[in-house]
């Protein structure tokens, strides 16, 4: 028999069978079972020659084919209307398989998300009330606190972190930060402390920032681990606090 089998990795026995049927351009409703069986077995032989492990599924199909072939050879068995065509045993699963292969093709031709089309990838706001366990931050809370400590050390060397009478409320400072972000769009972390005079003011400013980050209104970015931390409004910088008209 003169045929050529490309050594392909077939998904399974049905895949191989379908390939052989297509290659021989035969009718799936009238499969020349002897030819197809020979080619199928030839392919398995080839796989063995190339030391490719032949999965059990392929061998089960091989014996099914041989069985059908022998049944077909029995005189009269496939002429008889009373009895079902022995080939129905593989025809039905093949047809079903073709059906899903076609659907798989149809799927792959669709406009697939993240292959053909893209949606918005909005930075999610952190929504949960109390915990800082899953902050949607590009910088860790630790880094932020560390940076805060550095600034305090720099600006107020030797000062003890004692809390004095509070002149500023967190709310005041929150508004100040928002005002600055509105004005400038993005600011450096240290800038929000530029007018702070006392440790308590520092702390209040810092708490205000944490609050804003927590509410998802400010995003903290640090381009490199050495770089200056930057604050950007994570909403439109004209709004931010979300209760303007």
């Amino acid at each position, binding site marked *: 028999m003169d045929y050529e089998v490309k050594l392909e*990795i077939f998904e399974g026995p049905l895949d191989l069978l379908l390939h052989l049927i297509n290659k021989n351009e035969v009718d799936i409703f009238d499969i020349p079972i002897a030819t197809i069986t020979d080619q199928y077995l030839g392919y398995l032989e080839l796989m063995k020659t190339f030391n490719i492990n032949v999965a059990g599924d392929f061998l089960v199909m091989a014996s099914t084919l041989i069985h059908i072939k022998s049944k077909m050879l029995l005189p009269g068995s496939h002429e008889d209307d009373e009895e079902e065509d022995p080939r129905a045993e593989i025809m039905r699963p093949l047809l079903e*398989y073709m059906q*899903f292969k076609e659907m798989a*093709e149809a799927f*792959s031709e669709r406009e697939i998300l993240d292959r*053909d089309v893209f949606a918005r990838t909005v930075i999610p706001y952190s929504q949960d009330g109390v915990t800082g366990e899953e902050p949607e931050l590009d910088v860790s809370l630790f880094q932020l606190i560390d940076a805060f400590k550095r600034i305090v050390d720099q600006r107020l060397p030797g000062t003890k972190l004692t809390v004095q009478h509070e002149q500023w409320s967190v709310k005041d400072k929150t508004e100040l930060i928002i005002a600055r972000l509105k004005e400038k769009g993005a600011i450096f972390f240290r800038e929000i402390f530029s007018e702070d005079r006392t440790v308590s003011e520092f702390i209040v400013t810092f708490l205000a920032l944490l609050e804003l980050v927590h509410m998802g209104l400010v995003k903290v970015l640090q381009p490199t681990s050495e770089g200056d931390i930057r604050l950007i409004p994570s909403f439109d910088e004209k709004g931010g606090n979300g209760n303007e008209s």
Partner: protein
Amino acid sequence: MKRVETVTNHNIMSKSLKLIIEALLFASDRPLNVREINACLPDETGSKITQALYELQTEYDGLKRSFVLREVAQGFQLRTRSEYAPYVLRMLKTSPTRLSRAALETLAIIAYKQPILRQEIERLRGVDVGGILRTLLEKDLVRIMGRKNLPGRPLIYGTTKKFLAVFDLKDLGSLPKLKEIKEFGSDEEETIPISEEETQMGTSEPKND
């Protein structure tokens, strides 16, 4: 650009409604359905929101922007047009969503036959599908729906909402109709078209012929 004429009160309202909905869609990273939009706009009715959504859809098409409003996974989502994919992929520096042919076939079987057992999938594909099922579960395209009351209590599989979103489907009802088996003739080549475009796009699916 059609009418601008009389700005009645109603027009102002519906114009702002459309824009509010646009803002919501714009700020969301997942499809939003009418109910969800309504929750943000309690003074509006669902039907007005639906109408506004369809108007937006027409509007984007008319404006010929780079994005469109698609109805997917029982919701609405803004998406870029497919012709911009090469640029976006370059910008995102990621490889596109890829599914092997085997994974797609398995997915198709699950989509059409759900709820389905693993053994049924394997009967239809003629091979073991353990690894593929895992991939599909990991990618959140397939989910475990429960267990069948059979010996061994086998797991039942079905598709997810993400499956609908990824494959641009409104709901399971909008899956392309399965061809009746009778309709299959011998003209194999015609019933299984292979997209040229896909080969160009460099998807990883190996073709077998």
